[in-house]
């Protein structure tokens, strides 16, 4: 634990974590849209992702998109959910790609 704690490259780790949570929310939404994951699980997983993204303070786009995605799943709005999942996917990809 001590070794892992000493290795923290805080900004890089936070960016990777935000990308991971954004991708998680997008994938869960896709599984929900495909009928593979039930709504209560999707809601829980996306709520957790939204909380984590909010705590990390890296991407406002990801925070807003995950909040809208959560509302869309709660309301059963498939069109909005699909759009927000795409935004989250794009944001995750952008966060993972090396910045100039």
């Amino acid at each position: 634990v001590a070794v892992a704690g000493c290795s923290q490259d805080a900004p890089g780790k936070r960016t990777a974590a935000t990308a991971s949570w954004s991708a998680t929310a997008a994938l869960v939404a896709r599984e929900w849209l495909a009928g593979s994951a039930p709504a209560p699980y999707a809601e829980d997983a996306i709520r957790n992702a939204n909380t984590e993204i909010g705590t990390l303070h890296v991407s406002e786009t990801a925070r807003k998109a995950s909040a809208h995605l959560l509302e869309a799943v709660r309301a059963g709005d498939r069109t909005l959910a699909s759009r927000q999942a795409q935004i989250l996917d794009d944001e995750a990809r952008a966060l993972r790609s090396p910045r100039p």
Partner: protein
Amino acid sequence: MKKALEIALGIVTSVGGFLEIGSIATAAQAGAAFGFQLTWAVVLGGLCVMFLVEMSGRIAAVSKHTIADALRERFGFNFFLAPLIAVCLVSFLVLASELGGVCVALEILTGIGYQWWAPVAAIVTWLLLWKTTFGFIENGISLLGLVTVSFVVGAWQLHPDWLQVGRAALPSLPKWDGAHYWFLAVSILGASISPYLFYFYSSGAVEDKWDEGYLSINRIVASLGMGFGTLISVGVLIMAAVLLPPHGIQVDHYDQLPLLLTEKYGHTGFLLFGASLAIACLGAALELSLSLAYMVAQGFGWNWGENEKPRDEARFSLTYTVAILPRPCRSPLDWIH
């Protein structure tokens, strides 16, 4: 024929003993973060468990003593007290995480919060121990645990690069984030090599009245059974390594775990994951509770045995009751935190 059946049941039982929430979570974390590279840690953990379990079964078969009995009689009670306290403390915490695993699985399957499932999980675990025999727990619950083979089938159907998986079975140095790599390697080994497994196995051998004639069965069960458990953990790691990195997903929360089977098998995969987690954790919780009671009862020289009626070994039954039932006062996950 009887011996073949015992071997088959022993192998299946070993899966129940090997696979639990810790090994599923750490294998998935390792696969998502480092691809196949940490396969060696799972294999090494499996090998260590094979040898240790074989030795504990051999001690029981030859001397008719459990490990706890042997330790106390050979070194005296004062010496025995240190491992007793350490193992009880660790087992108590791990038991909380296994009951938590059952609750999380039920939350995933039903959508009802895990806190509400804590009393149900604790009471079901206790009732199974109170009402059933060692054979029922050993074979019945473990047979249900075969559902976890879905991870191996899933890994096979993903057609990973087997050459790369084979190479990763040998230890290698990390290419990036060394601290995280070694932290995960230690976590995998810690999740695999659980002390309760050896106390449970040797006590079970004494309960089943093993003698020298069982030495070959012990060897086969320990190697094939733990090998089978290791294979399932490797299946989890492969699935995580193939499915999650393309999305850039790291495993940081139990909510991300169902994606492993859901991504491959859709809704059936979702249900399979929930069932696998619930059964694996219930099996581990039963083994842990019994292991705790065995160790304490054997340490203090009380009557013990899951095949006896609770009134005939009241202090043994009271020990697992005390270990399990206070949990509903707070949720198992709160205990972990």
